């Protein structure tokens, strides 16, 4: 290039600009074409004609049941069931945790929320299985949700700490567990069996990443796992399931499916 003359042409800038515009517009178009309210809502998935959301399988009836009874809140007879598969060491799961809390507090007994353990078998998530066992052991003293909340809210703190079990013990004390019993349950078979049952269900449903959320047995694209996206789907499901002439009050009228 030593002997190539310096050019005064605008051609390189035009090419760079064109590539930038094509890349930005192309990326934006491809992403926005699959956003909530456009072409990937749950109604389409139920009709089986969602072209842009190929990964929305309906849960087969013979799928493994998971831990029984599941860790659930809300009403067992609610018209809408939300089932979340999550991993305590996954940052996206920790980011989803407050979203799910908001959904639970907004809909109360109108929904049934089920949490499933799906600790991924990867070296980077080396504490995840034990964290699920810790939460299940807390569940044996009816404190599953308190421990789940502690683990997700403080994920950064214990994930990076080699002394993580002592940190969990502090959480156990903080939420009022009988710590020796909790430790005993952690070492026992029952808590592990519940985690293994949940994992079997996740694998049976071909869950390949966390968090994965199902609403009324339909997998929700991750892009819709936000407060507005979930409210839109839940409102639509409540409306669909309500008896004729009886319309449930939507939680978010602005986002309700028309």
């Amino acid at each position, binding site marked *: *290039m*030593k*002997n*190539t*003359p*310096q*050019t005064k*042409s605008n*051609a*390189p800038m035009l*090419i*760079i600009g064109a*590539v*930038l515009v094509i*890349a930005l517009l*192309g*990326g934006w178009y*491809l*992403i926005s074409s*699959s956003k909530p309210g456009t072409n990937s809502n749950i109604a389409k998935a139920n009709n089986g004609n969602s072209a*842009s*959301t*190929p*990964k929305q399988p309906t849960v087969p009836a013979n799928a493994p049941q998971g831990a029984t009874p599941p860790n659930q809140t809300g009403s067992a007879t609610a018209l809408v069931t939300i089932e979340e598969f999550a991993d305590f*060491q*996954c*940052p*996206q799961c*920790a*980011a989803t945790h407050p979203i799910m809390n908001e959904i639970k507090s907004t809909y109360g007994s109108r929904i049934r929320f089920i949490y499933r353990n799906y600790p*991924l078998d*990867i*070296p*980077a*998530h080396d504490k995840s299985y034990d964290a699920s066992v810790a939460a299940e052991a807390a569940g044996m003293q009816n404190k599953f949700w308190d421990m789940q909340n502690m683990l997700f*809210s*403080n*994920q*950064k*703190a214990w994930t990076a700490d080699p002394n993580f079990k002592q940190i969990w013990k502090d959480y156990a004390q903080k939420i009022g567990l009988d710590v020796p019993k909790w430790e005993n349950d952690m070492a026992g078979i029952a808590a592990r069996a519940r985690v293994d049952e949940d994992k079997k269900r996740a694998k049976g449903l071909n869950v*390949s*990443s*966390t968090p994965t959320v199902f609403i009324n047995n339909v997998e929700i*694209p*991750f*892009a*819709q*796992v936000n407060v507005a996206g979930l409210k839109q789907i839940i409102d639509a499901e409540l409306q669909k399931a309500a008896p004729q002439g009886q319309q449930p009050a939507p939680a978010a009228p602005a986002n309700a499916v028309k």
Partner: protein
Amino acid sequence: MTETEAPKIEEKSTIAKLPILAALVALAGIADAIFLTVHHYNAEPVPCGGPFDCEMVLSSPYSTLSGFVGNVPVIGDMPLSIFGAVAYFIAFCFAILAAFGDRRTWPLFGVQSTLMATFACYLFYLQSVVIRAYCQWCLISAGISAALFIIFIISIFVKRRTA
């Protein structure tokens, strides 16, 4: 024209073509990175088969960057592929400017492609040692980064022979 001048002219022509080749390769990198980014935000699995386990790699904590203040995610779930797309675009800019005769940008392209190839090695290490699964689209990206670096190295050797 003497007999010794002929190959030198040929080599100079090769040097001039290398930035164009680099720009085209960088374009492929931009496309690959955008493809991965779009699939991330649409939460759609990428086409994957054979010995590859793309979901394992792309759902691992190494596939995204999250910025935390305390325990509160402030960036949250930015796929690494976005940064890849930006890096390829910068490499593309340097290459295209060099192709049009701006001598200053080719060394910058060299620095950029070296950094990218180094980071690609780190990502390959994560796949092979830490995650123990491979994603073909990530390997394609690593190959493109390596190709950009090799193009730069070739340009140095050809330049030395012409000098």
